[in-house]
C-alpha cells in the first residue's frame, strides 16, 4: 500500500515543493577529515559543512544560502569525541549540545558555558545543534561566543595545507563571516581549564524561554590576579572581547560605572528586529552591574 501511495499525483506535487523549498544541492557523507577537506576544496566555496543543520537548513529554506553540496561531517569519528579534564577540554565538531549539557563533568567544569548552551533554541534543536556550528554560523548573537572568548578557547581546524589552531578572538571577522578558508573543516573546540576562574553568562531576551539574545555577555574573574575578562554579543558585527580589566574593589558602584563606560565605547549596537540600539545601550550597564555582582560576590573580592 505504502509504495503505491508514493507514486500518486499528490506525492509528485509534494516532491516538487520539496525541491523548491530546500533548494538544489547534493549531499555527501564524509568518513574522514581529509576526505572532507578535499570535497570542500573541490567545491571551491560552493559547499557547506552540515553538522546539526539547525541554522544551515533554515538559511537554505529562506534562500539566504544556496550551497551546491552539503558535506555531512557527523560520521567522522574524530569529530564525535568529547574530552573534559583538568588540563583542558576538546569538544568535537559534531557533538550535539545536549550531549555537553547532560555531561556532568562538562557542567561542573564550564558552568557558564553550560548555561549559555542551555539558552540556545529548544530541547529538540539542542539534540542536533553543535558548538562548532554555533561559532561557524558566526551570528553576532551566538550565545556560546562570549563564554568561549572569556575562556580563551581555540578552534582546531584542518585544511588541505594541514592543521592550524585559531584563537577564538581571531575567529570572527564579520556578520556570518569567519577566518575559515573554503577548504577548512573545524575538528574541535579546545577550552583551557582554569579552576581559579569564576565565570558567568547573562542573556537578555524579549521573552523567557526560546529566543535569540538582544544582548548577551560573559565574564571571567580571577580573584588571585584580580583580573576581569568580559565579552559582549549582539552589539557589534562580531562578538566583542574587551582587554583584561584590573579589578578595583574599593568602590563597587564606581567600578561598575567605569566598566560600563569601557563596554559602551567598545560596541556599536544597531537597531534590528529584536531591539533598538537605544535599548541595547541602556541594558548594557545593567548587565555589567549584574555580571560584577555575580562574579565579585562569588569570587570573594570584597
Amino acid at each position, binding site marked *: 500500500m505504502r509504495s503505491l501511495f508514493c507514486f500518486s499525483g499528490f506525492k509528485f506535487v509534494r*516532491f516538487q515543493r*520539496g525541491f523548491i523549498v530546500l533548494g538544489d544541492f547534493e*549531499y555527501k557523507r564524509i568518513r574522514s577529515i581529509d576526505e572532507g577537506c578535499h570535497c570542500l576544496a573541490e567545491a571551491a566555496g560552493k559547499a557547506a559543512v552540515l553538522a546539526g543543520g*539547525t541554522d544551515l*537548513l533554515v538559511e537554505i529554506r529562506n534562500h539566504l544560502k544556496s550551497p551546491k553540496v552539503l558535506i555531512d561531517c557527523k560520521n567522522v569519528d574524530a569529530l564525535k569525541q568529547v574530552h573534559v579534564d583538568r588540563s583542558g577540554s576538546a569538544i568535537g565538531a559534531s557533538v550535539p549540545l545536549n550531549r555537553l549539557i547532560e555531561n556532568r563533568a562538562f557542567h561542573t567544569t564550564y558552568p557558564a558555558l553550560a548555561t549559555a548552551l542551555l539558552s540556545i533554541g*529548544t*530541547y529538540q*534543536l539542542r539534540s*542536533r545543534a553543535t558548538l562548532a556550528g554555533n561559532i561557524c554560523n558566526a551570528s553576532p548573537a551566538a550565545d556560546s561566543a562570549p563564554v568561549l572568548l572569556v575562556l580563551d578557547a581555540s578552534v582546531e581546524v584542518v585544511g588541505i595545507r594541514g592543521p592550524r589552531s585559531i584563537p577564538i578572538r581571531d575567529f570572527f571577522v564579520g556578520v556570518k563571516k569567519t577566518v575559515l578558508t573554503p577548504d577548512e573543516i573545524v575538528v574541535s573546540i579546545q577550552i583551557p581549564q582554569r579552576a581559579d576562574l569564576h565565570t558567568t553568562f547573562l542573556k537578555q531576551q524579549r521573552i523567557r524561554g*526560546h529566543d535569540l539574545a538582544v544582548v548577551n555577555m560573559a565574564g571571567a574573574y580571577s580573584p588571585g590576579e584580580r583580573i576581569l575578562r568580559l565579552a559582549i554579543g549582539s552589539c557589534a558585527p562580531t562578538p566583542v572581547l574587551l582587554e583584561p580589566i584590573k579589578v578595583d574593589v574599593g568602590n563597587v558602584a564606581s567600578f561598575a560605572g567605569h566598566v560600563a563606560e569601557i563596554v559602551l565605547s567598545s560596541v556599536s549596537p544597531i537597531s534590528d528586529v529584536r531591539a533598538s540600539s537605544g535599548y541595547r545601550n541602556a541594558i548594557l550597564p545593567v548587565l555589567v552591574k549584574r555580571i560584577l555582582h555575580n562574579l565579585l560576590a562569588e569570587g570573594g573580592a570584597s
Partner: protein
Amino acid sequence: MHTIRFTVNGHVEQATVPATMTLLDLLRDRLALTGTKEGCGIGECGACTVLLNGNPITSCLMLAVEADGSDIETIEGEAIGGELSVLQQAFIDEGATQCGFCTPGMIMSARGLLNRIPDPSHEEIIEAIAGNLCRCTGYEAIISAIQLAAARLSQDIGSRDAQEGRAR
C-alpha cells in the same frame, strides 16, 4: 538520489530520496505517517517533533538522507493494537488537547522527557516542552497530563508499557 535504510516505530524501512527531502516530508509523503505535523518548517514550533534514536528532534530540520541507519519513533508508534499509550490516555483525561495540531509533537517531546527522566519536576516538564507551541490550551493541562502519565507509570509497574521495557 540516495537509498537509505532506517527503522520507523520498529519497522525496517528502505527509501530512495533526493538530497533535498526533509525527514518530515519522507514520513508524511512517502510513508503516509501524517500524524507528524508541519507547522513552521524552521524548527520554531515543534509540531514535527519525532524521536531520533530516542531523542526529540524537529524533523523539518533534518534531511531524510541523514536518517540512514537511525531509529525513528513517531506518534503512530504510541498506540499499539488500538490501545492508547499511558501518555495518550493522560492527555485525554486531563483535557490537554483542543485543536490537536500540536499534540503529536507535544507527546513525542513528553515521551523523550520520560525516557530520560521518569519522574520529571514541573520545571523539567516546562523545559522539555518549551519547543512545542500550543495556541489553545495555555499549557497547564498539558503539564498536568505529563505529570499524570509519569505518576501512573511509576505506580503501574506491571503495565503493558513497563513490560515492554520503556516508559510507554
